[in-house]
């Protein structure tokens, strides 16, 4: 029961994350489109609403901020990758759904640290093609197989 609740919560949060990413992408697209329309209109008429004869220190600061954020993100991703390569089992435990882990355990794969391709195929033999793909995709996401 608990595992089912946890699973559905994980699926829900995954769905929310996906939705958030899509919304962010859509918002960025809208912003770009609006800027483009404004620029096209301005190019057509040759009119510029406001110009200031000071160098764009605001833009420089904004770019610096973006660069800093990007560098931080890269560092975080690197750290994650390193952590993943050091402890694949931990990350697998974090992300492989409990039902999948239980199913694999029933098939004789009790540890997810190093799953051999042959053993995995043998374990998944009884499943339909779609189920096999789903399980492998989950393991792939978890970094258990590559």
């Amino acid at each position, binding site marked *: 029961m608990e595992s089912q609740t946890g699973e559905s919560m994980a699926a829900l949060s995954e769905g929310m994350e996906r939705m958030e990413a899509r919304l962010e992408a859509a918002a960025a697209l809208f912003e770009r489109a609006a800027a483009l329309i404004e620029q096209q209109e301005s190019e057509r008429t040759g009119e510029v609403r406001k110009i*200031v*004869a000071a160098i764009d220190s605001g833009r420089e600061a904004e770019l610096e901020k973006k660069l800093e954020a990007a560098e931080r993100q890269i560092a975080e991703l690197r750290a994650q990758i390193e952590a993943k390569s050091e402890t694949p089992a931990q990350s697998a435990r974090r992300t492989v759904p409990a039902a999948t882990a239980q199913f694999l355990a029933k098939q004789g794969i009790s540890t997810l640290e190093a799953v051999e391709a042959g053993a995995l195929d043998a374990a998944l033999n009884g499943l339909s093609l779609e189920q096999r793909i789903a399980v492998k995709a989950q393991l792939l996401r978890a970094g258990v197989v590559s």
Partner: protein
Amino acid sequence: MRLEAMAVNLPEVAAHPNRAPFTGVLTLVDEPSTRPPSGARGHRVIFTRKAALAALPSLLGMAVDYAPSWDGHDARRKCGIITAADVGGSRLHVAGYLFAKDFPEVERQMRQCPPGAMGMSWELADAHVEDMRAEIWTLTRATFTGAAILLREKAAYRNTSFELAASRCRSILPRTAAQDGADAGATRRFREAGSTALRGRTTRKEETWNHRQAKAWPR
């Protein structure tokens, strides 16, 4: 050298505590900016002489502002007013007053900074660009909406300047409120050759002034 000038006549008050006269070079005309101005989408700009002259009336009475970091504009920090402008050669000179009592930090900065460290920057609205695909935009029409005092290195035009007058004492005749009211808001426009007109006064103007003053006394 050709010179085109325009000024607002403000009533003069000797040693006004809140007026610190300044002069400066706001921009260069018919010359490309040293760096792209903000809002020009990365293009350097040329402000044509014709456009600058046409825009001179819009410059008079506009405020000068400053940012505490001296690196740009802050339209909400208006610390002075432009009362005169002229285009001499390739330079657009301006003159006016700082509100020195209200903004002592501005006067302090001007007095303490090394000579030539400060410059100026304009703010234009409704600018018309001849060809927006050109590498350097040519501004053929614009309206001045303000100016800023800033570090010269932060200005799009490196050859701008800003200087406070050494003394606050300007002229000198005590004037009545009626005289001030009669003269305030008047504009003068003149064209001369080979002179720096902003600081000088013609004899004719002095005569007019004396005449007005004489007429005002009996009242």
